[in-house]
């Protein structure tokens, strides 16, 4: 069984919701990424998304874009990320901590690096799935086949302006979980959970047995509290990356404490 499917099975049995944090690889540096991933894994993360920095990330807001720029300016390469995640995966396995990794990566990168080489690299590193935010379902058929063969999940996005018929097509090609985008727009923190989102979640729930996880704008325990009755998990990116942003000044230990606290408050809001 794919590790993401297994993770949701465990959550279901424990009647719990998924907390899925996102960090940008190589921010502030690749050694810290390993530390931060372990911190999140030990503080309630159900799955961890690893962002592959890209020079032109059009779906991302200023916080994640800045993190990508910081990482690339230090000369981060794909090979560094794959090596780092392989090491973290091994360390966590030794400690019997089961937290699957998902790669968030632009199709620009996969194409140039080489699709087959990239998939093989992800498998070796211990990734369990891919999110390719700039690959719409129509363009995803080819890579979907390859991923299926490799046992990797392909997590697709459904947005508030996705028509129902199209959403069904996306659901049929999606595996692991459905990434439900909370609002039309880019990643980043937002104040409120839109009413429309809850309706969409209810509709999606009737269409698919896949877990539904909500991302874009989720930053506070209050958001998690609202969503726990409507979704199977939340994805938190910018709010975490914002803490990491302070690493240069505040130092890594302070950042680790801050994201551990944020993780704990979100996990308890999701499951209390």
């Amino acid at each position: 069984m794919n590790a993401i499917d297994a993770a949701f099975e465990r959550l279901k049995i424990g009647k719990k919701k998924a907390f899925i944090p996102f960090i940008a690889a190589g921010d502030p540096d690749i050694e810290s990424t390993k530390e931060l991933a372990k911190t999140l894994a030990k503080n309630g993360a159900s799955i961890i998304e690893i962002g592959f920095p890209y020079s032109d990330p059009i779906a991302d807001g200023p916080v994640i874009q800045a993190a990508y720029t910081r990482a690339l300016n230090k000369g981060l390469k794909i090979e560094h990320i794959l090596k780092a995640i392989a090491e973290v995966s091994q360390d966590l396995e030794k400690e019997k901590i089961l937290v699957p990794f998902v790669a968030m990566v632009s199709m620009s990168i996969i194409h140039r690096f080489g699709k087959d080489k990239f998939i093989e690299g992800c498998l070796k590193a211990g990734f369990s799935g891919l999110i390719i935010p700039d690959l719409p379902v129509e363009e995803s058929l080819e890579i979907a086949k390859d991923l299926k063969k490799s046992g990797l999940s392909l997590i697709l996005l459904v947005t508030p302006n996705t028509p129902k018929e199209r959403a069904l097509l996306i659901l049929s090609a999606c595996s692991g979980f459905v990434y439900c985008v909370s609002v039309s727009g880019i990643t980043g923190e937002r104040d409120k959970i839109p009413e429309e989102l809850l309706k969409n979640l209810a509709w999606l729930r009737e269409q698919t047995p896949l877990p539904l996880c909500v991302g874009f704008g989720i930053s506070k325990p209050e958001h998690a509290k609202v969503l726990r009755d409507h979704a199977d998990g939340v994805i938190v990116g910018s709010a975490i990356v914002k803490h990491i942003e302070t690493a240069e000044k505040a130092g890594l230990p302070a950042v680790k404490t801050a994201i551990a606290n944020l993780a704990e408050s979100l996990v308890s809001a999701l499951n209390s």
Partner: protein
Amino acid sequence: MNAKLQSIPDAMGRFGLFGGRYVPETLIEALNELTTEYEKACKDEAFQQEFHRYLNEYVGRPSRLYFAERLTKEAGGAKILLKREDLNHTGAHKINNSIGQALLAKRMGKKRIIAETGAGQHGVATATACALFNFPCRVYMGEEDIRRQKLNVFKMQAMGAEVCPVTTGSRTLRDAVNEAMRDWMSTVGDTHYIIGSAVGPHPFPWIVRDFQSVIGKESREQCIAQTGKLPKVVVASVGGGSNAAGMFFPFIHDKDVEIVGVEAGGRGPKPGGNAATLSHGAPGILHGAFSYVLQDTDGQTADVHSVSAGLDYPGVGPEHSYWKDSGRVKYTNVNDEEALAGFDLCSKLEGILPALETAHAVVEAMRIASKLTKDDVVVVCFSGRGDKDCYEIARVTGESLE
């Protein structure tokens, strides 16, 4: 070979292998809506008439096809004819597309327009169309370009557009495109994004090419009327490739017409030293389309350089990639130094200041003309006037206009 070349993108938005849509799900519906509306507009005679009425009455079309006698004599071979897009209102070909897309936005009931700009020509053209059709307009422009193109910033603001500085990445055109796409992701319901070149996700490359095709259509008719035959060679500069796509497309099926695109050779072939995407790049994905792109081995977009801000772009329109791989169009490049010399020569011999983009095409056209006979004709897309580049040329040549 030519008979088999595709004229419109297939159901997946591709010209051969190139094009498609590599954008976030949030934009797909807007792109579908745009495709449907554009298909309708193509068949709607009233829409086409309105577009051409504005091109004639407002832009000042048809632009002249001018026999450049002294450049011809200097080259010493074929006749050189200049398609004078510099004489359009706003001084470049960009206005053809901005007017067309603004009319399309009106047709779709959109309430607001956004655009990106590099050197500012497309920003000015879009600000112009927005003033004309009463749209609120926001133009994204890299901080670095704002510094280099103050006059164009002033023009856009004078026409009521808001110029939004982009401070991310390289702070140039490519980051302005990213920022405009991000805006569009959040405002897609009521906003239309007028992209300035034949790039981006389907259907943009197709729409931009079509609105710019008036250049090639007029040139073809004028050339036959003035010389009694088709040109031997057609030449245009290629950054993203909108003036070239518009010039080339109507000649694509004329199998005896040679077509040459001219990219920015910059300081030379080393990575980072040029913007000659088709000469030095490889197929990849940038700004929503699969096309040739200048990237490193990890897929990160490379830094580019050209003395011409309008050619300074690491990608190129997908249809150009298609034409390149099919062998229909030959792509070459002209470096900074040659382009500056071309600016000088054209100004002194013809009394016409070319934009630096245009100077690239003029240089290549003279090279080609020199190898042909006086019975042959070379048509050059004279895409824009050089006023906007005077400050930059003065800076590069060590003069000061302050």
